[in-house]
């Protein structure tokens, strides 16, 4: 007799996701299912719209990483207007806003979202495990997080006019340069941002190593990894080849990113609105892979800014390569934040940011494929248009979708490690939240965002009858609801 355990994060209540565990008669977990309950229908409703609207409309899929969607769409429509090579000014502006975006999103993810778990402990009082308590109890750390995020948001605002859903990229380039007076305040602040990012990496390392065995094994599952890669194999967030390594770190594919279709297939399952991508030359069972900060740090050969590179080397010599622990995502995430801060500092001195030469021209094409590294991983936008400039086809593979199977595997692993018999424990609830937050499913593509996912846990027989349930209440206390 198979039993089902349903874990219903308020994602259900937020309308974003829940988890079912399938358990066999020996109480072994066969499978974990993270149900994504959100459906938008973008691929259809964008049809018929003029292609130049894409960067503006599509960024409204995710308010946490809107710049990534804005730029992935922009890269695709660059190709439609036949521009392979942006002007130096346009490229510098796009990279600047993208670094600002990855920096602010990583700060949000770490400080506002994950840090309360790591700082207060996975089993600490849930009423305290949030950003408000972090501000009240660790004001220096929390304030640095708030300011790192602010810095990234202000960079985005300087380039695009707004912090969220601004207007910057146009087909073949950018619509306006920066001015010197806008750049000056950033030059004055960037050294602090670099210091704080570096200090945060040290904090994460200390926290991680304080219970090393536990943290390393937590939800750990070996996988392939995919990320964009620069020409010489350096960490690359804006443009490069898709490079895929296997669980031992050997390169198994390296291809220009517009050939993504030769690499990836997407399986549909009846129980989730999120598809399951895998490497087409393998099976869904063996070909799943991970993306995001951990994947990028594993896939790259080096980082081209010195402080982040030193931290990467330390990461690799501590955890080995490739690292597989989901909690190492946080560590990798802040190494990238440091890289972004350093890269922003370099760019601020680039006179191309002030250039008025921002638009390219070329020969009209019928399709465009834009691939970028969003904060949570590789993001693919693919469009076709007709002779009237209308979109006729759209295919999007967003970061979190790439991590779909990985999240299911890590949840299964955590449940295997911590579900004892039929006992549903508050600890298990907490731990499943923690491992999901390591990936941060941008479920919709954002879902619990700044959030903690309160849970409802249900133990079910295979016919769906609820045996018992555990629920978290508005006062933060747990009670038996079954």
């Amino acid at each position: 007799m198979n039993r089902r355990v349903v874990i219903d994060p308020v994602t259900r209540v937020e309308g974003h996701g829940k988890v079912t565990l399938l358990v066999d008669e020996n109480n072994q977990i066969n499978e974990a299912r993270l149900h994504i309950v959100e459906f938008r229908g973008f691929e259809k409703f964008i049809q018929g719209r003029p292609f130049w609207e894409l960067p503006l409309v599509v960024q409204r899929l995710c308010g946490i990483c809107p710049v990534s969607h804005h730029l992935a769409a922009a890269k695709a429509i660059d190709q439609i207007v036949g521009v392979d090579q942006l002007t130096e000014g346009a490229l510098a502006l796009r990279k600047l806003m993208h670094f600002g975006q990855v920096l602010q999103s990583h700060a949000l993810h770490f400080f506002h979202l994950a840090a309360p778990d790591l700082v207060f402990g996975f089993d600490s009082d849930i009423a305290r495990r949030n950003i408000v308590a972090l501000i009240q109890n660790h004001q220096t750390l929390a304030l640095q997080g708030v300011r790192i995020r602010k810095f990234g948001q202000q960079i985005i605002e300087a380039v695009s006019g707004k912090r969220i859903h601004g207007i910057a990229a146009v087909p073949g380039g950018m619509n306006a340069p920066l001015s010197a007076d806008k750049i000056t305040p950033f030059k004055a602040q960037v050294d602090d941002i670099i210091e704080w990012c570096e200090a945060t990496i040290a904090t994460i390392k200390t926290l991680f190593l304080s219970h090393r065995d536990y943290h390393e094994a937590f939800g750990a599952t070996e996988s392939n990894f995919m990320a964009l890669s620069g020409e010489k194999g350096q960490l690359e967030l804006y443009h490069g080849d898709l490079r895929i390594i296997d669980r031992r770190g050997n390169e198994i594919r390296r291809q220009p990113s517009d050939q993504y279709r030769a690499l990836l297939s997407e399986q549909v399952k009846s129980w989730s609105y999120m598809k399951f991508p895998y490497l087409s030359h393998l099976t869904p069972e063996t070909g799943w892979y991970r993306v995001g900060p951990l994947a990028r740090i594993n896939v790259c050969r080096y980082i081209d800014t010195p402080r982040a590179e030193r931290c990467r080397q330390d990461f690799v010599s501590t955890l080995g390569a490739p690292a597989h622990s989901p909690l190492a995502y946080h560590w990798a995430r802040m190494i990238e934040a440091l890289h972004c801060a350093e890269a922003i500092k370099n760019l601020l001195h680039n006179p191309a940011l002030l250039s008025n030469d921002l638009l390219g021209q070329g020969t009209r094409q019928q399709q465009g494929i834009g691939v970028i590294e969003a904060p949570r991983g590789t993001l693919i936008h693919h469009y076709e248009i007709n002779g009237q400039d209308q979109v006729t086809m759209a295919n999007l593979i967003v970061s979190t979708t790439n991590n779909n199977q990985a999240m299911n595997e890590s949840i299964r692993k955590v449940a295997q490690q911590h579900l004892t018999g039929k006992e549903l424990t508050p600890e298990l609830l907490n731990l499943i939240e923690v491992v999901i937050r390591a990936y941060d499913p941008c479920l919709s593509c954002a879902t619990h965002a700044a959030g903690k996912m309160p849970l409802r846990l249900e133990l079910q027989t295979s016919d769906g009858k609820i045996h018992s349930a555990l629920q978290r209440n508005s006062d933060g206390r747990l009670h038996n609801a079954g």
Partner: protein
Amino acid sequence: MKQAKLKVATCSLAGCFGCHMSFLDMDEAIIPLIEKIEFDRSPLTDIKSLSDCDIGLIEGGLCNEENQEILHQFRRHCTILVAVGACAINGGVPAMRNHFSLQECLEESYIRGLGVVDPQIPNDPELPRLLDKVLPIQSAVMVDYFLPGCPPPAAAFLEIINAVLEGRPPQLDYPNRRFD
């Protein structure tokens, strides 16, 4: 005597979380703010079920039955309900699907999509039923305030909270009342 804190709950229905992010764009101003307010159910806390609140901030419109359920819960528990952003007020970008049938949208993603293996429309009972059209929240409940913008600026959130704290009507002039 210390004044009781204003209780604020927030949720994201069919939205992109950009409105929540814009709330956080108040940056350091959150530090004095949390002296005056406390969060109830919100993606910012671990709190699951809603208790009685002074203000409920709703991001996003209605796209499935769960959204409807949550919205009614918020209306029941919140003295003041605020529709935050274009999606809550008029459906926003998600409502672009109203130009097509739901079935067409599902087929495009799960049957006809590029590189799709095992084409099928997800139908598990764990998935909430989708509505035929994406709807603004005032189609289902009474709304006390509308905060326009996509997203509304951080200052607009602060103004509405401060107005409630001070017991006066909110004053939203440009640039805090804007529609982009």
